[in-house]
């Protein structure tokens, strides 16, 4: 059977083109790579190259023909051992066949595809419950900073593949002292000072993770990680999927996130919603020292890329941490910080400071608020939120990030879709103001959420304002 040479598509959107010129004539010998014809589309003139060796047996579409459909047979090629006699046999029906084929292909492009599948349901993610803390476990008052350090040190002792890299993590002992003492205990092979080169060392970390190491990449702040966000999103988050599960990046990106104090617009931004948007990432944002420790240990052990969002202001705050050999918390599980029955506040990270104070204030006015610390932004424990809403029928979210497409906005939409009938009032999302962070002290204060705003929001959803 002679080989059909088909009208090629030059792009996925091309449907037809003009056959402007035949370079080879009937009877010419052709080798792979030889230009045999020129075709023309509205965008370009392109050369058609031969793929197989043989003799151009018959030209089926004359030069100058316009509107030749993609995949129409334009010529027949005789390969070794074939003669013109074979040509006659095959040539009786090529055009009809070709047009059928073209139609078949057009049909394949229809959305109701041959796979015949409707969109499968997204898998449900169920996080394990927090581990039991045995009766009588000693609770040690620990700063968030120490808790994070302890988590890294414990995991580095446990697993030689874990190392920490970043700016000033070693000899300087950490720009915010989170890595204090790690160099002394683990040496400069495992505690690696990098140049100021976020995009580069984020990528180096991901590459090391591809090779099976378990890097902890510290960003001096997540504001600087914007230089590295391509490596985080395109390389770390997507590779497992793009590799069909063959390889991924067991890596932790951590560092302070969000507004500190008086450092203005470029140094004061919350990335919870940004990273929360990306499939392939886990995003953790703890509030208490115990959560910081247990979740960072979990993040380091997790085989996936984890974004671990800390906060400079929280670093120095102390919380009780259970004294246990191996205190690991589940990623993806919210924590009910305070039970209540009248309204629910959901927050995370430093947002919890507003939530907790507002709840105390409201208790004095007879409103019993349930406060949920989300702890993990992705995967998000909406079940815990919805269970609470079903009980209190009122919801306020609190975060420092910008209001549009915020974490709170996502929670509100999910609650509306899954628990609309349980809501006695519209959800209110308390967030940072829709402005770059100002430097002036008074304006900065206004740009951030306040306890008063949270109190007011809870009263509003309770119709008691």
């Amino acid at each position, binding site marked *: 059977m002679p080989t059909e040479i088909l009208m*090629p598509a030059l792009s996925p959107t091309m449907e037809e083109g003009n056959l402007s010129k035949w370079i080879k004539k009937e009877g010419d010998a052709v080798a792979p790579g030889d230009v045999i014809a020129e075709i023309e589309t509205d965008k370009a003139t392109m050369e058609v*190259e031969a793929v197989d060796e043989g003799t151009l047996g018959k030209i089926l579409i004359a030069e100058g023909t316009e509107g030749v459909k993609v995949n129409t047979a334009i010529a027949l090629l005789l390969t070794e051992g074939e003669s013109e006699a074979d040509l006659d046999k095959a040539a009786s029906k090529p055009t009809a066949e070709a047009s059928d084929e073209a139609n078949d292909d057009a049909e394949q492009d229809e959305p109701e595809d041959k796979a015949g599948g409707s969109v*499968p349901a997204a898998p449900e993610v169920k996080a394990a419950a927090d581990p039991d803390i045995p009766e009588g476990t000693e609770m040690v008052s620990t700063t968030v900073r120490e808790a994070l350090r302890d988590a890294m040190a414990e995991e580095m002792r446990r697993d030689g593949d874990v190392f920490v890299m970043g700016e000033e993590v070693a000899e300087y002992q950490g*720009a915010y002292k989170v890595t204090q003492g790690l160099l002394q205990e683990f040496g400069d092979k495992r505690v690696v000072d990098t140049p100021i080169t976020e995009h580069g060392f984020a*990528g180096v970390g991901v590459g090391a993770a591809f090779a099976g190491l378990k890097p902890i990449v510290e960003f001096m702040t997540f504001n600087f990680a914007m230089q590295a966000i391509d490596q985080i999103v395109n390389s770390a988050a997507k590779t497992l999927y793009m590799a069909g599960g063959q390889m991924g990046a067991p890596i932790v990106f951590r560092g302070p996130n969000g507004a500190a104090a008086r450092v203005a617009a470029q140094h004061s931004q919350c990335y919870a919603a940004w990273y929360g948007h990306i499939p392939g990432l886990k995003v953790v944002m703890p509030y208490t020292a115990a959560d910081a420790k247990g979740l960072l240990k979990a993040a380091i052990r997790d085989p996936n890329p984890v974004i671990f969002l800390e906060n400079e202001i929280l670093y120095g705050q102390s919380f009780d941490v259970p004294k246990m050999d191996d205190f690991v918390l589940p990623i993806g599980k919210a924590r009910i910080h305070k039970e209540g029955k009248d309204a629910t506040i959901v927050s995370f990270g430093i947002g919890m400071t507003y939530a907790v104070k507002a709840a105390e204030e409201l208790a004095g006015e007879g409103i019993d608020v349930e406060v949920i610390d989300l702890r993990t932004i992705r995967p998000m424990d909406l079940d815990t939120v919805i269970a609470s809403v079903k009980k209190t029928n009122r919801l306020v979210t609190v975060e420092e990030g910008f209001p549009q497409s915020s974490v709170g906005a996502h929670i509100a939409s999910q609650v509306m879709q899954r628990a609309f009938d349980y809501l006695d009032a519209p959800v209110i999302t308390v967030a940072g103001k829709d402005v770059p962070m100002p430097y002036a002290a008074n304006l900065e204060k206004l740009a951030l959420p306040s306890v008063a705003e949270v109190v007011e929001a809870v009263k509003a959803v309770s119709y008691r304002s």
Partner: protein
Amino acid sequence: MARAASKTSAARSRSTKKGAAGAAVQAPKPPKPEDFDKEQELHAYREMLLIRRFEEKAGQLYGMGLIGGFCHLYIGQEAVVVGMQMSMNDGDQVITGYRDHGHMLATGMEARGVMAELTGRRNGYSKGKGGSMHMFSKEKKFYGGHGIVGAQVPLGTGLAFANRYRGDDSVSITYFGDGAANQGQVYESFNMASLWKLPVVYIIENNRYAMGTAVARSSAETDFSHRGLSFKIPGIQVDGMDVRAVKAAGDLAVDWCRSGKGPIILEMQTYRYRGHSMSDPAKYRSKDEVQKMRSEHDPIEQVKQRLVANKWADEDELKAIDKEVREIVGDSAEFAQTDPEPDVSELYTDILL
């Protein structure tokens, strides 16, 4: 740029980081290509021919609408990956950008799996979820296949970091093009690789055009072997159309890395015959230029002529190789068209472990 220094940060005195300072690295002399023996010539011929025929077939399937999206062909550049592969040890890693089909075949990945990935089928290397630009093989130490220009350079540097961390003697072979060579993250990587003496061979495949922009129109320094100079990384220019020259430079470079001297750059001067991608009409260069490269410098033709001149293979034997390669490619194309698309359940798999 204000680097936040918290109130808790104490000042400290600077100490010199060991290994960071030192005299400029003496660039090794470009090696003279050694003649291949019969076995090497035949191996190089077959491997390059496989890539060429595979790419021609991929171009054809693209034309038939069976391959979607972007498809960047490697035709013309075959000697680079084949010569380098002949210099490498089993544990050495390969990583590259989006013009990656040749690299995959050179590492020994199956033509079927690569072609089926191009057509988006379930037995493609990435189960059909990666496509032309995003393919991997853990088994063959092929770390992608990356669609973002230059992103593979820090990643490849990270592979080398892991080699050094583990104390094994593997080398990361990190490929990128003359276009990617102008990305900032390349130089961030050079700095760290040199600072930490990482075993990485940076291969700049200079095919003269970053998409449609000629090197001289995009690059202040067009000698890419000099691109590492301010990081004390030596570089060598190599005739990337001559597989013997590539192997000689590759041997030198991997030895350089394995002996603990840190990174090295090889600028492979090569040429792509086809457009940047399938939809590139290549109006930025003349047909004569392409034709001259094809007729005078073709990497496969060079080997073929030597095989014939040395009487190491006659026309029939070469035809037999051609036939074998054609069968592999034909089989891969057949497979890539009959293999089913991924099951719809795969939509939600491989996102998290």
